[in-house]
């Protein structure tokens, strides 16, 4: 974190730490309760980081706006703690989404370099988002 930026807020909520669709299972597969598995990275912290992935994908143009809206509305309806219940969620999500985007871009570049192949369309979208965020510091309106 650069100088002059707000320090991270104190830890406050139980976070999964590695939330993605591959961590959701149910049994029986059609009627069972959904379970969130793989708690290796469980910890207490800012819950916005659990939303970093979908937020980043939406910001990178990978997740369609209607799907992001549905996800966010459902999350808020259930009282999700990461974002305020109404209004702009981005003040809370901006930094986690940026971090996830940068991490994803770095992995994409490493993979494509290792495979001696060009970036695919999705990887390029993530790298493009890094270029845009470099011009807009966190906390900008």
């Amino acid at each position, binding site marked *: 974190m650069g100088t002059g930026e707000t320090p991270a807020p104190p830890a406050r909520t139980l976070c999964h730490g590695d939330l993605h669709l591959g961590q959701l299972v149910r049994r029986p597969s059609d009627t069972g309760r959904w379970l969130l598995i793989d708690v290796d990275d469980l910890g207490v912290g800012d819950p916005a980081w659990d939303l970093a992935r979908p937020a980043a994908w939406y910001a990178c143009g990978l997740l369609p706006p209607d799907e992001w809206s549905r996800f966010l509305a459902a999350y808020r309806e259930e009282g999700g703690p990461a974002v305020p219940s109404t209004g702009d969620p*981005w003040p809370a999500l901006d930094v986690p989404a940026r971090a996830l985007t940068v991490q994803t871009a770095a992995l994409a570049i490493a993979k494509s370099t290792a495979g001696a192949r060009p970036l695919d369309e999705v990887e390029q979208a993530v790298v493009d*988002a890094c270029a845009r965020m470099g011009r807009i510091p966190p906390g900008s309106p």
Partner: protein
Amino acid sequence: MQCPKCHAPMHTYNRNGVQIEQCSGCRGIFLDYGELESLTRLESQWAQPAPPPPAAPQAYPAAPAWGAPHGSHHGGHGHYGHHRHKSFGHMLFSS
């Protein structure tokens, strides 16, 4: 002034700065020259959109300033379309 239709007396009213004559019998209205234009102008002012309220519904949900410009890539479909790209599918399901 007498109503040209039913000949009852007409009374003058001022409506938003426009003088109109209304018949006390048939309630018909007489407009002087230019008054119809004045009313049209008032109507168009009335119909002009008020400044948008801050919580006006958006075509797209809010996004950060560095977000992808929606609708401007690849024929308006962004990177998502009928088929999930392979590398995005991988992102959805892995750490």
